[in-house]
């Protein structure tokens, strides 16, 4: 299930709902990403995310499809916020389920790397220093590249 919306994400509820949906999968992993109160630019007062529907959703669907081909998943949920968020609010929730933990961990990690670099979002940070559009950090690209290297091997 993929949802990109301005609606507030309650990660605890999202996890419970996911657990109910996948039954006795065996292994469930979830990741919650929140707006950090401090960034390299200063104290963060808000973060604004733009998406471009349906391009954003289509890209996430492709990444999910790749994850499903790579790992035997019993299910996956991806919830992503758009609009204006305050520090501490949940930006993204990813949950994966599989028979064993490794597949669930790796699939969640892969999906998060996609969401942090390639996903169609534009991000504006407002800090005590002003507003700035943020592009992915080099670390994010390196994290995402790990999966490419594995493919070549």
């Amino acid at each position, binding site marked *: 299930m993929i949802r990109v919306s301005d609606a507030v994400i309650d990660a605890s509820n999202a996890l419970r709902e996911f657990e109910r949906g996948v039954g006795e999968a065996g292994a469930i992993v979830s990741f919650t990403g929140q707006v950090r109160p401090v960034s390299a630019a200063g104290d963060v007062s808000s973060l604004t995310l*733009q998406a471009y529907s349906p391009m954003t959703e289509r890209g996430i669907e492709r990444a999910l499809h790749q994850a499903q081909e790579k790992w035997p998943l019993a299910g996956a949920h991806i919830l992503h916020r758009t609009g204006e968020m305050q520090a501490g609010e949940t930006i993204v929730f990813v949950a994966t389920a599989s028979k064993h933990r490794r597949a669930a961990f790796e699939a969640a990690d892969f999906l998060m790397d996609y969401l942090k670099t390639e996903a169609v979002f534009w991000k504006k940070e407002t800090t005590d220093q002003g507003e700035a559009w943020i592009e992915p950090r080099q670390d994010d690209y390196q994290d995402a590249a790990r999966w490419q290297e594995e493919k070549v091997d």
Partner: protein
Amino acid sequence: MVKVIYFGRLSDVTGVDEEVLDLPDGVETAGALRNWLDLRFEAGGALLEPTVRIAINSEICFDSTSLDQAIEIALMPPVGGG
């Protein structure tokens, strides 16, 4: 009439998030539109950067792609991830 959307930092350059336009004669491809908009907004090349991609009806296109079927055009700077 065509809807044009400016994403991310491009909206700071154009001053609008989106607008509905009548394209002038001669603006028949994505590349021509890019040039025309850059002049119109006095963007100093910000819309000409190769990293700024153009989507027609939410499909990424080339500069040579015709605007014949365009209902919605998006100018997209590099995505920032979530």
